[in-house]
């Protein structure tokens, strides 16, 4: 072999044509496409609803509004046997009917007004809840007469009876339609009890046992449940 020929052969080995692998890949791809269509091509058919099915989820919502002064007005300077009525309206303002009604109370302040644990008898504030199917007619006159159908939905009990973790049921079942309302009267009473303060001593808020000069803050939480779930078919 001549040196020139030897050099040429060496160059050929060093510089392989770049087109070779590209061409091979191209041919391979073409074969794949051709055979691929043969293997996978087939008829298919589809059908769809031309009008999209509309789906909306409902909303369950309950709002509390004062009827008259309601809870916004302070209950002040209570004495034993005093009774204070407050009126509120609950409105189901969602898009779903509801059922049931519960009440839970969270409190801060003096336990002597809240917890009825005194050995001398009932001393803490008691609460009663009445419901009227229509609006209370005269909330400013004390009892706020209910035209008809008054129902006591919570019998009298100390405030502590409502402070558990589970709401107390006021109404079971009884569907409340969308935009329906429940008209409630909340009655707070300081039970009749005897206390004797000697020589003008004024109990401080820290004085235990007394119901005088005490204060508490009450948060009333009403709850309702969604209407019974349904199965509809059409």
């Amino acid at each position, binding site marked *: 072999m001549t040196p020139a020929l030897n050099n040429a052969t060496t160059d050929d080995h060093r510089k392989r044509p770049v087109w070779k692998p590209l061409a091979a890949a191209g041919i391979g791809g073409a074969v794949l496409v051709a055979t691929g269509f043969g293997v996978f091509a*087939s*008829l*298919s*058919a*589809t*059908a*769809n*609803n031309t*009008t*999209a*099915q*509309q*789906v*909306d*989820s*409902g*909303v*369950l*919502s*309950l*709002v*509390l509004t004062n009827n008259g002064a309601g809870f916004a007005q302070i209950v002040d300077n209570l004495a034993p046997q005093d009774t204070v009525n407050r009126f509120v309206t609950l409105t189901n*303002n*969602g*898009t*779903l009917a509801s059922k049931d009604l519960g009440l839970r109370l969270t409190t801060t302040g003096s336990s002597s007004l809240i917890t009825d644990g005194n050995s001398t008898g009932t001393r803490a504030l008691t609460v009663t809840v009445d419901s009227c199917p229509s609006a209370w007619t005269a909330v400013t006159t004390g009892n706020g007469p209910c035209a008809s159908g008054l129902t006591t939905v919570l019998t009298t009990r100390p405030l502590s009876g409502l402070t558990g973790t589970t709401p107390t049921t006021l109404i079971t079942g009884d569907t409340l339609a969308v935009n329906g309302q429940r008209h409630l009267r909340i009655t707070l009473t300081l039970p009749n009890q005897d206390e004797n303060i000697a020589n003008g001593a004024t109990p401080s808020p820290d004085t235990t046992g007394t119901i005088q000069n005490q204060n508490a803050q009450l948060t009333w939480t009403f*709850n309702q449940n*969604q*209407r*019974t*779930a*349904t*199965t*509809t*078919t*059409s």
Partner: protein
Amino acid sequence: MTRGQHSTTRPSVWRPLGAASIAGVALTLTGSGLWAGLTATARSPAQQVSSGTLSITLADNGSGFTQPITSIAPGDVVNRYVTLTSGGTLAAQRLTLGLTSSATNTLIGSGAGALRLTVTSCSTSWATTTGVCTGGTTATLLAATPLGSVIATPSVLVPGTIAAGALTRLQISLALPDADETTTNGVAPAGSIQGLSTSLTYTFAQVQRTATTTGS
């Protein structure tokens, strides 16, 4: 240069023409003698060949998909009925259901609060007002599945063959799972399933039966 030498170096143009003419005449004469004879052919009646058609159509059975589902609540189940017709001349196979949604929200996700889709077939016909498969048998083609899963990947309803002309009568059931949510003073919690809406497009698809090789 002699005359013979001249013809060797420059052949006359007439010579090949003459030779070709003679050969052509001879070929014509002898050829006619060689190829003349009886011939026979066979011809079939025209073979009819027709291609098949593959078709599927969707029709509401009762209200079907045209009736909106409004104010659905946890625990609610809403059944709608549609009928698929494999209306082509070819048998089909592998019926699938795909789904698209106009909205992206909790209802059409894959979480615990998402709507569940169940597809059930009836061998006879559905009484759409009662949900009863009258005199027939039902088969669950798709167990309760979050809509998000069906949106992500079409679900196979019928893997096998569907005869040409066959009707597939379906109950499409949407259920909102039980869920605890508390709306406080009119404000729903974050991630709520309440007050949401979407529009759903169901796409049923099938492919032709397996290709065959026949001999007869």
